[in-house]
């Protein structure tokens, strides 16, 4: 399983990345939406495509919502699951993200168990970890 973690905070990229690696994911990172699109593009050349993107909302250059719009507009990335991971937690914000095409939404602060639960909901939890 492969994931792309997109957050302008190195600390958060490391936290999310570590949890995903513990679940057996191979993880790549990006510091904003623009960089993330570049990572996706470069990945295409080597046959690397993430099953999951964990996306922060507030980032410089291109924010998480814009990234979601961009990915969902591209049929090549139809199979990629998009999950927001953000402090933005007003109902309106969540609705906006889901309407833009995000599949799930994880509010910060979250625990490793919460991320695991979301992955289970999405069918993205490797079987060995389900216990």
């Amino acid at each position, binding site marked *: 399983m492969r994931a792309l973690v997109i957050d302008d905070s190195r600390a958060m990229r490391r936290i999310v990345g570590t949890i995903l690696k513990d679940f057996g994911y191979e993880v790549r990172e990006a510091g904003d939406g623009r960089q993330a699109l570049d990572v996706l593009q470069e990945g295409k050349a080597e046959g690397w495509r993430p099953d999951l993107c964990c996306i922060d909302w507030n980032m410089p250059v291109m924010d998480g919502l814009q990234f979601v719009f961009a990915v969902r507009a591209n049929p090549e990335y139809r199979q990629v699951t998009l999950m927001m991971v953000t402090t933005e937690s007003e109902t309106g914000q969540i609705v906006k993200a889901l309407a833009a095409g995000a599949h*799930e939404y*994880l509010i910060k602060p979250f*625990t490793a168990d919460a991320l695991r639960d979301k992955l289970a909901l999405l069918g993205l939890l490797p079987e060995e970890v389900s216990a």
Partner: protein
Amino acid sequence: MTLTATSFDWVRQLVHRESAIVLQPGKEYLVEARLLPMAQQLGCAGVSELVETVRNHPDPAKTRRIVEALTTNETSWFRDGDPFTAFTSTVLPQLVAARRPDERLQIWSAACSSGQEAYTIAMLLSDALPNAATRVSITATDLSRQMVERTRAGRFSQLEVNRGLPATMLVRHFTRSGNEWEISPTLRRMVTATECNLAAPLPRLGPFDVVYLRNVLIYFDLPTKQAILTRVRQLMRPDGWLFLGAAETTLGVDDNWERVVLGRGSAYRPRKGA
């Protein structure tokens, strides 16, 4: 690990006495993690010091807090998935067909903790049935008064709503209230919460069409497990459904149940003639 063997032993005996729940050796880490916040709040250096304090100065309120801290389950929404997808896809249609339209379906969440299971069921029902509020009633019980009050309140922290609740359900069935999320009044009214100790004779509840008794039997010894399953069966309709935790079974415990495979999980139904 700062917890001493004597401290763990005292806690183990207290919990068994107050709730019949058995803390096996090896659960020291659980005691440590669950009681550390209380120890810190009371200015104790660690959990062993907390235990010594309560042993030397018995205090019913502190004792109760200790028991409650150790007898709450790990709570998430739609826990393990299958018992809830199976409910919507198989159990509910069968029940609706088998009951009269004016008969309320009765569901029991029998170790409800802070209410996630009961409200998960309420959300599923409101999405599956028109007029769910009038067709179903959900009884939620727990050993802990604190948990019963939490279930009644239907308010959950950000951390709690993060646990396995699909975002689409969050936005449709909850509203923000300060830093917390409140279940909608319609769903809240579908749930009635009361205190109940499964290890003791049960109050007159039900008769239930569906019982969720998930991840609570594991805390009890075999005779208590058998007693609980018997009492539960007595409160169920003969064609009712029992859901246990993902790793649990009635096999080897009580043979008055028939196991039915549902999706990747199973449910149990009272054996005919039991």
